[in-house]
């Protein structure tokens, strides 16, 4: 049973937050399978559940994989799998889904 390290970035309440876990997987588990399993266990409305896959970086031991590689990449004992919310380009991201930089004077001004 291969043990892998799972790292998630940007899926938590903070965009700059990390989530790390160790998983014990069945033999020949692929990256895609880990991702789907994670997604299905996430709560409805959570970013992990609703994010478009095109906004996610999939890394194995720091190396970027995409497309067919996701189904082909079989994980071995000691591998690190990282899923990161992409901040270098991507596909259509809703433009209004950004975050206010400044709170309005009514609720306390910063700057």
């Amino acid at each position: 049973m291969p043990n892998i390290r799972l790292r998630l970035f940007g899926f938590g309440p903070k965009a700059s937050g990390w989530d790390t876990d160790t998983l014990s997987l069945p033999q020949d588990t692929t990256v895609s399978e880990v991702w789907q399993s994670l997604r299905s266990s996430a709560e409805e409305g959570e970013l992990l559940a609703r994010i478009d896959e095109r906004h996610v970086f999939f890394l194995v031991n720091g190396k970027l994989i995409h497309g067919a590689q996701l189904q082909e990449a079989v994980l071995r004992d000691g591998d690190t799998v990282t899923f990161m919310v992409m901040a270098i380009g991507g596909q259509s991201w809703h433009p209004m889904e950004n975050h206010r930089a400044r709170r309005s004077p009514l609720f306390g001004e910063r700057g």
Partner: protein
Amino acid sequence: MENTSRERRAMPRDIADQRILNVELDSGRTWVEEVPREELLRFLGGRGINAKLLYERVAPGTDPLGPDNVLIIGPGTLTGTSAPSSGRTSVTCKGPATGLYLKVSVGGHLGAELKYSGYDYLVIQGAAKDPVYLWIDDGQVEIRDARHLWGLGTRDTDRLLKEELGDDEIEIGLIGPAGENKVLFSCLIFSLYNSASRGGVGAVMGSKNLKAIAARGTGGLRVAEGDEFFDLAARTRRELAADAGSNTLHTWGTSGSVPDLNEMRMLPSYNFNEVRIDDAEKLSGQYLLDEGYLIGRESCFSCSTACHRFVHTKEHTYGEVRDSGPELETVMSLGAECGIIDTEAIIKANQLCNDYGMDVISVGHVISWAMESYEKGLIKGKQADDLDLHFGNVESQLELIRRIALREGLLGDLLANGTRQAAEEVGGDSWKWAIQAKGLEQSGVDTRMAKSYALAFAVNPRGPDHLMTETFAEFGFTEEARALIEEITGDEKFADPTLLDKRADIVRWHEDCFAATDALGFCAFTSTAAYAVNPQNMAQLYGHALGIQFSEEELMKAGRRIVTLERCFNVREGARRDDDTLPWRMMNTPVPEGPRKGMVTDKEMLDHLLDQYYDVHGWDLGTGIPKRDILQILGLLELCGDCAAE
């Protein structure tokens, strides 16, 4: 109602009727020239015309800090229109750090204001006897006394000038004390938040005793095919907004990519000794937002992306700061490269560079070089000005930034000349960890593991960085990037930065596109990081603006013409194939860890890449000099024939 300013008002004009304002600082003489339409079509405008003017007016061997150097400020041809993110300006001169061609790009709002005041290019030659500033008031030009401003930081100068001229809506380009002290990486600040950073343009202004350029303009710009232009511009703006490359830049800024880069072991740290750093997310744009440092996002003229940050410190550990930045290169060079991951510290360091007027990439790398030299015992005691220069020492870094800007102390003065000269003086092996080539510090891309970047950096006429040609697509991070690589090379599989194949084709396409992007005034983020602006719609917008049919091929050919002309300038200065090189560490020290562990771009690989590149360009393989027949094809024989290879 009597309008006493009617005589001074700049008139509305056609965007293709381009005018050059020449200023001779010794005599105070100013005169206006027109740009012939054929020249505009050949060189597109902006960077292109700048390059031509520089080639014609700066003879080989000219001292970059002498009066015969010429400083040319050229907004893009579409700057001032509603074309999205078209507000960029090219600043061109002979570069003090390298002694070679220097084009620097800058955003903000001054470029547009210059055009509204009636001028498309500002050509400044000679040197004033005492500090002066230029005031361009709706067409009228004045050279005014700046002695009371000399020595002041950029922020105070901006404020005082606006008070003095009685208008807080004027746009200003200015230098800080670093430019006055001719620090070889001093910059020219535009509209406070923007910087023509690299290679020492600030020093060129300082050497001319020119403190600032202020402009105000009310003259409008007309385009030939108004409705078509307007509609295409609006559509392109919306397409750009939908591109997530643009969106992530808006949300998290350029430093949003820090965690991704770090995780992929692509974040240069400790003077390129490492490729990652612990707690890198503290350097990220996400962190600035989550932790409440970010209090505003700012744009350049006509840009809806708004990648600029505006921050406010929280703990005020190193003093309270409200200022623009930090950017990705900032957190890399002043942060990871110096072993510092303290957000408060980086905000402060960035503010110092903003106020003194210095390029953060060079400042960071000059200090990280000093830190490595110190830790290796090559700089010590008196030579270190009694500073503790271990990696990670924030206080020393902040103090050193001040000393460099003011050329204070042995070390401050030494480092103010850049790593190439500093390493020559300090000696030993220190040249090996001077991350520079041609005299310019390299920007934060690991050129051991990204081969088209390696090639682009090696052949960049101004030195090794990504701001003449950014081949971002070779990483293949997104579908669009992979599609572009397929378009250029025929196969998506070449979207792999570790390959040596097809790199020259990738570089050449991006060179052409980037040159056209600059010439028209577009931000490279729209055409090489996002792709909503591309050669096709750039050509269409240009065509609608001028009222002509203009194809993508013509646009890219004009881009090629500009790149080749820039090459000729350097050839004339004596640059050859040997100068197209990379920092020693990139060629000799393997990547220490990660999926690309062990990689370098050694001499053999570089030679292979250069051969490909010169071949694709039609330049002589041995020297890198453009051949006569390619100059003929590009219509450059008359201008540049004297430096052609046979």
